[in-house]
């Protein structure tokens, strides 16, 4: 499970920017605490503007709906329900059902109720590693099997929380791309902080070039990928970690014992048909710790691990 450990609430940056970049238009804005952009192969500024606004609107809609930092979000309503039954809308129902299925497939490793661990784990690069007495009480409030979920009705026992942070960004990328396709069939690339999806190859048939950032903090480029179709998602601990007594604790926590997974790769980038699939697979790979590469190879996933 990807512990959601934002150290600050998402910035509600309102500034968005449309500019030319090579033969494309690039529309950039900030949402979900990451820089977001959509790159459209077109010479039409008006079309690019319309596409950019549609993508931004979809990103903000999903952020408002699923961010646990906003009191009016569905997630906050569910978390503050105190055990009452909540009837959710179809989109939320699909997402919760998806999370439930992932919980089953992953044998309990992917669990959206594990967000409570952020109360004791703060991955700010310091050495504040919590001990067992701090972690243990939280384990009672973790476990999707304790949630009563019968679509479309969810009932969370008191003290438990759900967190869509592990899914929302990738889901937003896929939905944003769908919004672009409803407006135009020009080649487009939607990228929210490194989780991206393309609508297909460029007009010339060439592939999109995507630079993979190095895990070192020197801003170098670790590699260049070429993508004809589908999505990429990256799971990594470049900025979120704790360091104590020479041991690096990555931010991927095992919901079954509340502790970080050991020997995870520094980063895993997965290519798949959709961003949701890529993101979930990257998360599962990280959860395998030192067996991440074996897991990816056995499943036949196109992925790149950096150790």
């Amino acid at each position, binding site marked *: 499970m990807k512990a959601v450990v934002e150290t600050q609430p998402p910035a509600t940056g309102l500034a968005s920017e449309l500019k030319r970049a090579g033969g494309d238009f690039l529309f950039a804005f900030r949402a979900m605490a990451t820089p977001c952009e959509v790159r459209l192969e077109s010479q039409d500024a008006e079309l690019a503007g319309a596409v950019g606004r549609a993508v931004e609107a979809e990103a903000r809609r999903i952020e408002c709906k699923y961010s646990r930092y906003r009191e009016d979000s569905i997630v906050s309503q569910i978390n503050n329900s105190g055990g009452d039954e909540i009837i959710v809308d*179809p*989109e939320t129902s*699909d*997402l919760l059902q*998806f999370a439930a*299925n*992932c919980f089953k*497939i*992953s*044998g309990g*490793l992917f669990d959206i109720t594990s967000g409570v661990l952020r109360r004791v784990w703060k991955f700010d690069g310091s050495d504040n590693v919590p001990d067992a007495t701090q972690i243990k009480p939280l384990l009672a409030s973790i476990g999707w099997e304790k949630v009563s979920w019968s679509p479309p009705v969810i009932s969370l026992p008191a003290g438990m929380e759900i967190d869509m942070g592990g899914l929302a960004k990738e*889901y937003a990328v*896929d*939905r944003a791309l*769908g919004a672009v*396709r*409803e407006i135009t*069939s020009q080649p487009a690339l939607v990228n929210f902080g490194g989780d991206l999806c393309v*609508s*297909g*190859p460029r007009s010339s048939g060439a592939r999109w070039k995507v630079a993979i950032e190095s895990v070192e903090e020197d801003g170098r480029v670790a590699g260049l990928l070429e993508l*004809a*179709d*589908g999505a990429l998602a990256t799971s990594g601990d470049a900025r979120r970690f704790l360091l104590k007594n020479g041991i690096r604790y990555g931010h991927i926590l*095992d919901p079954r014992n509340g502790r970080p*997974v*050991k020997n995870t790769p520094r980063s895993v980038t997965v*290519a*798949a*048909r*959709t961003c*949701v*699939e890529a993101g*979930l*697979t990257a998360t*599962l790979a990280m*959860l*395998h*710790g030192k*067996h991440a590469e074996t*897991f990816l190879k*056995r*499943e*036949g*996933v*196109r992925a790149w691990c950096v150790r």
Partner: protein
Amino acid sequence: MRIKKRRAGQIRESIASLSAGLLAATITPIAGSAVAQSYSNSDSNHNRDTFGPGIAYSELDSALLVYKEGDGRVQAIEPSTDLTVHGPAGQEISLGFVFDAVSGATPNGAVPSDLPQTFVTPVKAQGSTATVTSASGGSTIIHLPPSPGDLAAAALGRQYVVPANALPMDRGFHDHRWAINFGWSQPMGGLSEVGMGGGYSIEQDYRAITVNTRVAQNFNSNNTTVSLALNMELDSSFPYGGVPTPLTAMNPQWKSPSSRGKTQTGFVLSLTQIVTRHWLMQLNYSFDWQSGYQNDPYRILSVVDPSSGEPLSYLYENRPRERQTQSVFWENKFDFGPTVTDISLRYFKDDWGITSKTAELAERIDLSHSIYVEPSARWYQQSAANFFDYYLVQGQSLPAYATSDTRLGKFTSLTYGVKIGFKPTGRTEFYVRGDYYRQTGDGHPANAIGQLQQQNLFAGSKAAYVLIGYTWDFH
């Protein structure tokens, strides 16, 4: 800390399936877009989309069949290969080759006798002195007196003797066949799939040309596929020694015409339905119409004495020029997790009086994520054609059509097999399959005459065969 060990790729497939479902439910893909294709999760064939969307890939399949019947009868070796290239938008193009080499002894259609019998047949090269498989066939080349009025040199024939109480078989059987086939399909217009294909097969005494076309449409979130395929085949038979006049006496002279043709047209209407998460079924109806030369030009029937049952002469067989066939085929596949069960039934009926029933069962068991074993069994039963007879009787009027070919007779067959497969990587597979096939029939009919009561008239065979295969996906 490891997710419970499962079959390779299963987790990825589940995640892919779930993600596609999550997004399909909330996004309407634009029809015709390449990525929209990738949301659909079940193509009727070739669903190994393991390279991701928009990436063309190829599959190379090859196989080798080694086949051998008991009692020194037919044996064959048949390598085959097929290359299919998948384009990024659901296009497929394929090319395949088959070669087979067949040899051995094959029943010539006559009944056994308590005295030795002598048969003659044309040699393969008209007017030549080339010997024909006499090393293995035990035949001798004989010189025949020229026909009256024929000023040409004496013709050659091939003569062989069958011992008493043995099923008469021609041991000089020997043939090579080469075949090529190609196909192309892709989504087109509003249809899920439109395709065409053709093939050409040539052997020493037969040629077949086939063309076919197919359209298919998916419904119901790709849970249902309906397709219609049409095919046409043009065959030409050019037997050694020319085409014999049916129901005339066996003789080794070269005859005319030298070749005869046959046309076959038909269609297959198919419904494939994913019924539940675990159960896939396919129901097919096929209809075929054949018109032209249907005889086996080498096959004879014995004409026997009405009281002693001794063979007196031999006549070439004759089958109707036209044949219509229909069949209904139903296949079910069940995925129970570690096993996949495949059950199929077929009912066949034609206007030659033949009806047949087939039932097949295979159970694939995964021993680990890279090895499986699959035992299988097949039961088959057919009735005789209405012009089938083990022999003809001297003095009775000649029927219009007659054959003693076991293939058109009444029998039951059973096949038992086991297959073992290895998948060293997600992209390659290697398998070995061994089968045993046996035909059983009534060789002692109640109305057998004279010495035939002591003979086994059933000429069915038993065979063992091994198939070795290798498949490789790459791009």
